[in-house]
Every structure is written in C-alpha cells, then in structure tokens.
C-alpha cells in the first residue's frame, strides 16, 4: 500500500488530505502513480496535479525528478512552502 498525502491549497482543491492507495503488485514510479491517480479521479485532479509548481515528496524528502516507489512508501503533493 502507498500512503498519499496532500497539503494546503492542493489538499483543498482536491478535497482530499490522505489516501491509501493499494500497492499495484508490480514496479511503479512516481509519474505512473500520478497518472493512475488522475485516471482514477478525473480531470480536476489532472488539472491540479499537473500545475507547474506542485512539489512531490517521497518518504518526507522532496524529489525533483521521477523515481521508483516501493510498497509502504509515503508520497506527498504540495504547493510551494510559505512558512517562517
């Protein structure tokens, strides 16, 4: 299973904070997961997640590129940070 988290504006736009996504049983990478999410949830998700400035993190580390995922990984999507 993959645990998927959404934060801030993205969480609001998708109306979704967390999602438990069944492990597909075969190798999967971040881009593929994102595509699968869009196929499952429709045009709104594709629009929101394909915005230029969406940041993706795997296991609490930001990843700028696509990367392989493993069963049990935590994946997060969020907008540029504005703390401080």
């Amino acid at each position, binding site marked *: 299973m993959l645990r998927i988290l959404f934060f801030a504006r993205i969480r609001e736009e998708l109306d979704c904070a967390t999602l438990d996504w069944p492990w597909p049983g075969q190798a999967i990478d971040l881009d593929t997961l994102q595509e699968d999410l869009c196929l499952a949830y429709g045009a709104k998700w594709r629009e929101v997640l394909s915005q230029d*400035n969406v940041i993706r993190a795997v296991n609490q580390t930001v990843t700028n590129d696509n990367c392989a995922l493993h069963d049990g990984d935590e994946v997060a999507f969020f907008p540029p940070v504005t703390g401080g």
Partner: protein
Amino acid sequence: MARLQAALLAGAATEGAIATFTGYVRTTNDKRPVHSLELEHYPGMTQRSLKNIAREAATRWPLLAASIVHRVGVLSPGEQIVWIGVAAAHRGSAFAACEYIMDFLKTAAPLWKKEKGPAGERWVETRKEDGERTQRWQEIGGR
C-alpha cells in the same frame, strides 16, 4: 516557545555570542488587514526538515547550538510564528548561521500560511525574493 528560548540562552551563555531571529504575524499584508493566520504543516517532515537545515548550518559554521521553533495552527496578528537562536564562539558565525537557517526554512520546510482577512481567506503566495535569498548561499558557500 519561551521555555525553549530560555534553555538555549542559559545553555550557551558562557560561549560568546547568540544571534536570534523572531518572526511575527503581520497586522497587514499587501495593505489588507490580517485577522488571523493559519499555519498548516506536514507532520514528521517538518521536524525532519528543520533538523536538516540546522545540521547543514552546523557543517558550514562552527556552532555551539542552534534551535528552531515554528508554530502551527491558528495565530493572531502580533503573535510569534518562528524563533531561531544560534550560539557560537564568534559573532560572524552566529549571524550568518541564523540568517541561513531562516532563508532555508522559508524555502524548504513544509509549512503553509493561510491568511484570513475582511475579504475572506487566501493562501499566502511564495515571494520570489525568498528563493533568491536561498540561492545566495550556494554562491557564497560556507564560512
């Protein structure tokens, strides 16, 4: 927050220099009054991120202690959002590390601000200047 500040100040009091930074909730932003500010964060990753930033600062300058406190949840104008304290034997290191930590916190820690004002709610936008300030450190390098 006061307790942590006192602990750092007391613990490092014999060591030369302490630089601190405190950020406050503004009463206005872009000329619009701010009624309250909601800080959302990514639990777990926020702590990890702040720890990494402090650790990175400690590899760049000879520090004795560094402490970062960031509040989350709903805050009112005038309340403290963030406090950074850095202790070092020399003031140059204390100042530089404190500013470095703040710059990276602004661009790397998973925290998001939502302002509530008379016109309703809005997510605060990233300021271009913050990215530029972080960039600077790549050029300057350590020490």
